């Protein structure tokens, strides 16, 4: 059976803090679960934003197979 993994990405200061740019998970229930699994249980910093499939989401948002989950700090463009 084809496995649809979950892609997890970290950006900017969170990429440096976790030491991870991208990783894949076999399963994750929520964004919080993806954070926990990808970081090996690292406590979540106070200000972390989550995007699922390029849209902002909450930490308790459900994840399904094939999703892309991204974690990043407050944005500072412009």
């Amino acid at each position, binding site marked *: 059976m084809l496995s649809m993994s979950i892609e997890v*990405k970290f950006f*900017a*200061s969170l990429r440096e803090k976790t030491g991870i740019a991208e990783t894949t998970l076999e399963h994750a229930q929520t964004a919080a679960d993806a954070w926990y699994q990808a970081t090996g249980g690292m406590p979540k910093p106070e200000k972390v934003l989550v995007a699922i499939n390029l849209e902002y989401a909450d930490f308790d948002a459900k994840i399904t197979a094939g999703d892309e989950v991204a974690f990043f700090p*407050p944005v500072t*463009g412009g």
Partner: protein
Amino acid sequence: MSSQIIDCHFEPYQLLNEHQQTLQAGSFGACACFVGSMRDFNDNASVSGMQLEHYPQMTAHYLDKLEQQARQQWPLLDCLIVHRVGAIAPNDPIVLIGCWSAHRRAALEACAWLIEELKQRAPFWKKETRPDGERWVESNTDGH
């Protein structure tokens, strides 16, 4: 309607003019633009350079979405968003927003809305080079 991410120096007023040339002559009565550029200071410290990182798929998606939302709120003939990424030097332009409409209010209001939304939501991050080392900028100024 157009959004672009650029990884090298750009001339904002040249891009604005080039884009305006693509619009039908006589169709617009107003063009409002915003150009954001890099300061050589921040929070009372000198800043000699900057790295601008982004989340490529999400920035492309998000800038297109912002333009669509602006066009739903104001009767715009066209708009243009250009944002720089990569290594940036003081005085380099970082962002260009251009809005064209038949009358001034739509162009002015949409331009102001777009830059505030971009600064609050679009996934870009700045890392400054200061005399004491590099530092991620933690938040944008709110409406300054």
